């Protein structure tokens, strides 16, 4: 677990269409790379949302860096962000 890449996903309540697309994408990626990823999903505002100064959902934070905000990335973009953080 210690070596896994932390991926934090922030979604709105109720879920927006971009958030639903993002969750579909994350499930696909988890099925392929779940052994290397620690995916944590937050719904609604919380202290982490404030900590990262997020202003829009959906958002993705990889390795404590905000990578995407207010948009659902395509798989290629998400994979690029994950590979920058060490995904094999």
């Amino acid at each position, binding site marked *: 677990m210690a070596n896994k890449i932390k991926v934090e996903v*922030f*979604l*709105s*309540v*109720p*879920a*927006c*269409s*971009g*958030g*639903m697309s993002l969750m579909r994408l994350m499930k696909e990626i988890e099925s392929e790379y779940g052994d290397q990823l620690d995916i944590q999903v937050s719904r*609604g*505002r919380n202290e982490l*949302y404030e900590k990262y100064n*997020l*202003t*829009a*959902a*959906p*958002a993705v934070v990889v390795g404590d860096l905000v990578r995407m905000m*207010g*948009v659902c990335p395509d798989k290629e973009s998400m994979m690029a962000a994950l590979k920058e953080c060490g995904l094999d």
Partner: protein
Amino acid sequence: MVKMEVLSGDPPCPGCVAILALADEFAEKYKGRLEVVKLVGSEAIPKFEQYKLGCVPAVVINEKIRIEGICPTRKMLESALREGGL
């Protein structure tokens, strides 16, 4: 009076931000003829479940779902309101 309920998420996505601004614009434009109800975040959940919506942003006009999962253009929203009797 036509009733337009606008449901959006919190934290907001760009579409939710845009649709709330559009709702304010239309409330002003059709004052006296259009009742606009904005439901954001957890306050939207009861109606979200009542209408069996799948995602936001959403627009419900006279209790009929017209738009779901996108922020419409002004033209599209005008059309939906006309369909709703405005």
